[in-house]
């Protein structure tokens, strides 16, 4: 191990991970998924921009080329349907009244 001769400098103070940041957000999760993703459509999508653009990181590519989506910690922003280039893959709506994200310091 060549790097052992000269230990790496201490890393700068790390930014909190996205999971840490998401843990600060209050979600009153409703029973009904307000966004659904048709993963059959996603299999034909090569770029999958939703995976990187979603600020809550709710879209995960699966091994079979599809996309796994989790509605529970959704900001309800709308980025996913705007970047989705496969028409109809994402059906987007708001959660039931009173449910979903609760911003306190927005």
């Amino acid at each position: 191990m060549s790097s052992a001769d000269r230990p790496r400098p201490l890393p700068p103070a790390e930014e909190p991970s996205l999971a840490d940041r998401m843990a600060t957000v209050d979600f009153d999760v409703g029973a009904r998924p307000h966004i659904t993703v048709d993963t059959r459509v996603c299999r034909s999508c090569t770029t999958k921009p939703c995976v990187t653009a979603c600020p809550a990181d709710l879209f995960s590519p699966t091994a079979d080329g599809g996309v796994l989506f989790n509605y529970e910690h959704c900001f309800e922003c709308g980025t996913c349907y705007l970047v989705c280039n496969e028409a109809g893959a994402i059906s987007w709506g708001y959660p039931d009244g009173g449910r979903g994200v609760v911003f306190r310091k927005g």
Partner: protein
Amino acid sequence: MLISVVLAPADPLPDVDPLTAEVRTDRRACRLSPGDAAALELALRLADGLREGGAAPRLLAVAAGPPGHDAALREAAALGAGVLRVDRPPERPEDAEYEAHTAEALAGALTRGGDRPDLVLCGAGPADAPGALPAFLAHRLGFAQALGLLSLAPSGAGPGGGPAGLTGVRRLDRGRREVLGVPLPAVCSVEGTGAEPRRAPLAAALAAAGAPVPVVQAPAARPRVRAVSVGPARPRTRPVPPPQGDAHRRILALTGALERTERPTVLGPLGAAEAADALLAFLRRHDHLPEAEG
């Protein structure tokens, strides 16, 4: 039959200062815990069932707290319950008997004007309290108590078209279920998984919007047990993702096995000033300190 539901809106994500352990809640974000919501829903179902049987059950939702609790009470009102708030300041005193006082105040409200509820429902596992409130309430009212129920159904025929008692189901360990026969009057607490709460119709929500909620004052507290000291609240634990990589590598990284480390360097007996210089030079060499100036 009078069914009362005790609601305890609470902030599910309070801000806990990591240094002082001061807990700050957001009054607007206070909402019903899943247990409270299930208690309200079960009360509504019981009332629906009794109404079908020709009885005329009454429903009363009570909360002890600041005006911020009115939003939750209005939703209950829109679902057809009468509502009453026992005024309490928003700050929770660090008081060993806080729940006992709350039970005292609630019991007074529940039995106003010689009224007596036949059933008092609470949510099990409140977000911001130890959860002894139902027991205190049962004690104060002299009612039977059955805590941590999943479901509740009327059984037998009692006076006035109401049931003689209730049958409750409770979860035990190792997957067992316990069916309890609960006589009336009783205080029951309900788990959050018991029933998905219904939503109030729009017309009723409109009618309840902005309506004043009746308020009663809490009686002055007479503490018997005094809190000598209170330990700090702790930030809530947070699930962290499983670590990356395979176990073998992680153990190697954690223990430092197989890593080449520098042998201890002995620089011989040195004076304090030389020793400090040697240490600083070592730290600079390894980028832990900026390069020497000048």
